[in-house]
């Protein structure tokens, strides 16, 4: 066990740091500052995608720092897998507030799918533009009748000459209003049961017949939409993988999504805010953090967070060593969702009676940002498969317990 980096990696870190220092100035970094009390800081929404950021990203790709798993032919930097270098790059870019890989569903979900299942033409057409943010994507999986159970999808596509004609409805589509394209699962073989007959399809969002209706959330914000399809025509070549094989094609992307949500960075950010809050708020004549019951709860959630972070280091090590992480890789998401809720709930309690004030109310502590975290912690419970689905997977695939008996 050795938590420092070897000289080889330290040299690599120095290179990265020098590169960033040269190409992303203090002035750039200052222009990226986000008010630490803001809702954007809490939810991690502040990512720069302007021209300045795009040109920096292009340089960083050339240098081999971003999109390392993507071939140069498609706009990546095509580096041999090295999880430690990846961590070093992420740390250095973050420290300098420099633009990093865009974390949206396009680069993190669609691109791996295209690389694995797409045709040469599809890769050329989409990957590069997606990586630098020129094409933004939304995901069309969930439907009103198919949340956890994607096999029940009803949105259908029928072949009419050289086009598919799509009819149906998607729901919980994030960024549907901004996205130029959607990657979607649609049913193309209605007579085949369940998982069979689903096709993975790319749909341009400005196609006639698409109606995007924003869904307002509990927090009052709009992050999701319903998307309605009425005779939407999609060219026949807008399919990834084989027709009817969408289920298989989609499964690799889901894995990516889960890894994203299971990352403890969001919990760390909320916890650090909570700690500051507890040191700031005065309750009944003393700092909230000096209340022994709050203090005890604070350490208890911090301990779980530290365990999650160290667990992430263990997973990284397994990955760097090329070992199979097995069970260890299955738990982060379920672990993090419960933790998110408990951190946010404690933050609500730490505020005392002022916890009842709304998001954005200036009399509220930190403008009510912890109410966002609290409500989002419930959203996280739901995103990427509910906790019960996670428990099924962990029990069945992780612990080798019998599969569900179903009608």
């Amino acid at each position, binding site marked *: 066990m050795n938590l420092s980096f070897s000289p080889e990696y330290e040299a690599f870190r120095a290179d990265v740091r020098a590169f960033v220092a040269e190409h992303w100035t203090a002035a750039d970094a200052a222009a990226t500052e986000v008010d630490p009390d803001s809702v954007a800081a809490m939810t991690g929404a502040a990512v720069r995608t302007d021209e300045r950021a795009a040109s920096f990203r292009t340089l960083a790709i050339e240098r081999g720092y971003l999109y390392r798993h993507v071939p140069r032919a498609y706009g990546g930097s095509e580096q041999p897998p090295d999880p430690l270098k990846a961590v070093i790059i992420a740390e250095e870019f973050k420290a300098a507030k420099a633009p990093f890989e865009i974390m949206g569903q396009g680069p993190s979900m669609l691109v791996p799918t295209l690389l694995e299942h797409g045709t040469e033409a599809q890769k050329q057409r989409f990957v590069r533009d997606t990586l630098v943010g020129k094409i933004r994507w939304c995901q069309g999986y969930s439907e009103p009748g198919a949340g*956890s159970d994607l096999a029940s999808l009803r949105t259908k596509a029928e072949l009419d000459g050289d086009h598919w004609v799509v009819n149906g409805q998607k729901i919980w589509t994030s960024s549907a209003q901004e996205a130029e394209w959607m990657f979607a699962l649609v049913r193309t073989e209605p007579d085949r049961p369940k998982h069979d007959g689903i096709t993975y399809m790319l749909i341009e969002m400005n196609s006639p017949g698409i109606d995007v209706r924003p869904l307002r*959330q*509990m927090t009052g914000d709009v992050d999701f939409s319903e998307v309605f399809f009425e005779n939407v025509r999609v060219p026949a070549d807008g399919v990834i993988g084989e027709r009817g094989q969408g289920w298989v094609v989609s499964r690799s992307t889901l894995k990516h999504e889960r890894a994203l949500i299971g990352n403890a960075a969001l919990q760390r950010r909320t916890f650090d805010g909570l700690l500051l809050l507890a040191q700031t708020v005065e309750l009944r004549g003393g700092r909230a953090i000096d209340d022994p019951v709050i203090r005890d709860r604070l350490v208890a959630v911090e301990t779980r967070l530290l365990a999650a972070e160290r667990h992430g280091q263990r997973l990284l090590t397994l990955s760097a060593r090329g070992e199979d992480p097995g069970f260890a890789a299955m738990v982060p998401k379920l672990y993090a969702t419960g933790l998110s809720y408990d951190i946010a709930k404690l933050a609500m309690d730490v505020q*005392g009676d002022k*916890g009842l*004030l*709304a998001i954005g109310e200036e*009399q509220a502590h930190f403008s009510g940002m912890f109410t966002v975290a609290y409500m989002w912690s*419930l959203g996280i419970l739901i995103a990427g498969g509910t906790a019960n689905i996670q428990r099924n997977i962990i029990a069945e695939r992780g612990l080798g317990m019998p599969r569900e008996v*179903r009608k």
Partner: protein
Amino acid sequence: MDFGLSEEQVLLKDSVRRYFEGECPTSRVRTVMEGSDGHDVGLWSGLTEMGIPGLLVPEAQGGSGLDLLDAALVAEEMGWACIPGPYLACVMATVGLLAVDDTSVAARLLSGIAAGDILATVALGEDGDEWDADRVQTRVEGGVLRGTKPLVPYAASADVVLVAARDAEGPGLWLVERGAGGMTIAPLEGSDMTRRVARVTLAETPGTKIASGRRAIDRARDAGLVLLAADAYGGAQRCVEMTRDYVLTREQFGQPIGAFQAVKHQLADLATQLEPALSLWWYAAHAYDHIPEDAARYAALAKAHLTDLYDRAMRDCTELHGGIGFTWEYDLQLWFRRAIFDRAFLGDAAHHRQRAADLAGW
């Protein structure tokens, strides 16, 4: 020995529930939420016709002279139906007035409250989550009040505010009329817009002392604690019912999700924790009027326990709903917001547990 509701109480609950079902569906709740003052005058006058604001007002002042338990049963129904408005403020002010020294002033106000002519509220807490009468900082000297009350329910709508303050003799309750000089009312936005609060600043504001000592303040607070517990119970039960109905309808993997054992057990656990809690707040309400030695302690226990359960119910019910429960349009979030209010207002669960330990002399 009869630990249950009387026929009259069951009738009261039923009539209130029918009234809300007919008059105040969640569409109306949402309209009031979006309104400027969170106070639906039409709804309130309907309640006034039913005698609700005067439930605790003595018959001599035109009220029904009933017990806090009766008022809490109405609060339970308001929690169930997510009813907006100043009911909590009204009851807290009423019991405060019932405990004052100056009975002539009280009698006038109580008549007005019962008749629906006067909307009264209480300004008890202060910055730093301070709700204890002994820690009030608002000062009275030469007949004028100076201080800040950060969370006063329905201050902007109220005709009179009963203010906890202190003079040379110690804590007491002062009457401040609407529009009194130096009083600034800044409405605040809360997560729950069905129960409004405002920040009230008193700068050389004239007021009339109506009670000496902490008793009137304590009575108002304890009644508030019981009402919040009852509201939490009603709300949590409603959410369990909504969730039960939802999981019986929603199908995934070829069956209603309510057929999955994990879902069944989550709801069974929740319902099992809630059911005995009903008796806890019933007793707290009963003790408030009839068993003085248990009144303050059970009010604290009931508020702490029921608002903990409400929070847990909202977590579990939102999770069991999946995405729909996280939307603005679906009504579950209205109760989620209400749970936040019930939990935070008048001090949180751990604080009341600590008070309960102290009150027990442990």
